[in-house]
């Protein structure tokens, strides 16, 4: 018998626990020639803002040991474009669409939430209060528990859509931000966004990235991300989407055993467009191999060792 893979993330029904990390999968068509999008548990699309954003100057990416630093700066065509052009494409597939939203102000988040509430085909919101690559908003909200709560309250006050809050590891206590987000009404949490980092070109004697600092992702950050999931799972009763350096099924299982109900594959898509499918197949194989009937049996299992 095949194990049950379906999970519910704060009201979003996913047929399996594998989704994409925002900003690593575009709006879907970018990877449609490599995988069957219908097999994804959900898609979390590229971060969307009220107005189009140009993004940061180049270079926007640099490789680091087992990771990358990016400073895209939330380049995106704006929420209206997303609704008119990107969403209709995704409606051809049988998968929940989770829209990652970012704002410069609390009011921006509320407006985005209200706009997306009106649209058919949006299964939920991922509230990005943790982007390290923008001057206003972003990490500013995510690094202070009270500000995070304020954004969550504004979003929850503007929409009935399930609201997932994406948290930053660039804080003293991620648990505190998670607790405040939960109190403010968050339905689920995404852990973690990128770690703030930088690289210097020693030949040219200057920072590599056009924006100087960027967000570190990839296998290098996985231990930090697993730790964050572990800590938050113990203290906060919200479903968690775990992410940060997942390349293989084994990586994803670390997150699930630490307490994540679902996982998102990010940077790995860049090197292996089929990474999400390999992670999904590997999770299923693991459940069969160890005799589990349902993915839920292993969520947080490492805490019960």
């Amino acid at each position, binding site marked *: 018998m095949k194990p049950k893979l379906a999970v519910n993330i704060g009201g979003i029904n996913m047929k399996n626990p594998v989704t994409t990390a925002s900003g690593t999968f*575009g709006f879907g068509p970018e990877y449609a020639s490599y995988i069957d999008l219908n097999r994804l548990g959900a898609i979390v699309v590229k971060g969307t803002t009220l107005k189009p954003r140009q993004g940061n100057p180049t270079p926007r990416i640099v490789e680091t040991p087992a990771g990358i630093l990016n400073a895209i700066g939330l380049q995106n065509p704006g929420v209206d474009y997303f609704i008119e052009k990107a969403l209709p494409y995704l409606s051809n597939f049988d998968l929940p669409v989770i829209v990652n939203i970012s704002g410069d102000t609390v009011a921006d988040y509320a407006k985005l939430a209200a706009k997306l509430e009106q649209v058919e085909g949006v299964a939920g919101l991922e509230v990005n209060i943790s982007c390290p690559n923008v001057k206003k908003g972003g990490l500013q909200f995510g690094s202070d528990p009270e500000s995070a709560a304020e954004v969550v309250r504004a979003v929850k006050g503007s929409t009935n859509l399930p609201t997932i809050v994406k948290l930053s590891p660039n804080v003293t206590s991620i648990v505190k931000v998670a607790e405040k987000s939960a109190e403010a009404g968050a339905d689920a949490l995404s852990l973690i966004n990128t770690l703030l980092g930088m690289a210097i070109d020693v030949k040219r004697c200057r920072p590599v990235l056009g924006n100087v600092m960027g967000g570190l992702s990839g296998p290098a950050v996985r231990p930090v991300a697993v730790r964050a999931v572990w800590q938050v799972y113990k203290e906060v009763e919200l479903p968690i989407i775990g992410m940060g350096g997942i390349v293989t099924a084994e990586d994803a299982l670390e997150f699930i055993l630490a307490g994540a109900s679902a996982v998102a594959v990010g940077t790995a898509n860049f090197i292996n467009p089929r990474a999400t499918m390999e992670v999904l197949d590997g999770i299923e194989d693991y459940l069969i191999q160890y005799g589990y009937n349902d993915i839920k049996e292993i969520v947080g299992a490492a805490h019960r060792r």
Partner: protein
Amino acid sequence: MSLIIDAEVIEHEQVGPDFYRLKLLAPEILKNAVPGQFVHVRVSQSLEPLLRRPISIHNVNREKGQLMLLYQVVGRGTAVLTRAKPGQSLNLLGPLGRGFTLPAESQKVVVVAGGIGVAPLIYLLQELALNSISAAVYLGARSKEYLLAVKEISSLGFTPFLATDDGSEGYHGPVTSMLEKDLAKQPVDIVYSCGPFPMLKSLAKILMNYNIPFEVSLEERMGCGVGACLSCACKIKSAGEAGYVYRHVCVDGPVFSGQEVAWDEA
């Protein structure tokens, strides 16, 4: 349609100071490829280096299903790639990106290459030769040993005009200056080019003076190669406030119309 495949290494040789030529068996990728497109190569099975490396298709052998890559060792990724041995396979995504627009038979064509920028232009010349289109080829490099693919250009039936910065071969000076002198003497309908950005910028200035259409292949640090990560941004002219918008080398290029690139903003 782009694919992800494991391609067998057929041959791999060093052809210059930092330059290597890699022949791969990849008939599936060849089927849809056009000059100017690239493949995204996973240089290692391990996660270090992590990212793929975008390398333009240098030339193709359709009968044998082989494609050739000409690359320069510039960092860790390409250094690792030099170790690939015949018989081994390399994981490729491709063909990716937007290639060159082929000219009409009657058009007077000029091809300008700078250094390793010659790489995608050989495939273009191959297609031109196949369609009996003649072209004047200008090839520049910093010195003699950096002039690449001279033999290939000749064997395709083109006679390259050579230029070196140090005068060790051909014209002494920038390849664009050599071209500029010739432009005054004869009409040109279209120019195709690839090379370092400063060379392309100076070429653009010259060609826009003469009002000659041109296509350029651009480079920028790339992540995914498929338009998802938005890393490889380049500035394209726009009527908006900033005077430019960002487009992406991986999917909107690497080949762009020279007129649309915001040269002065870069």
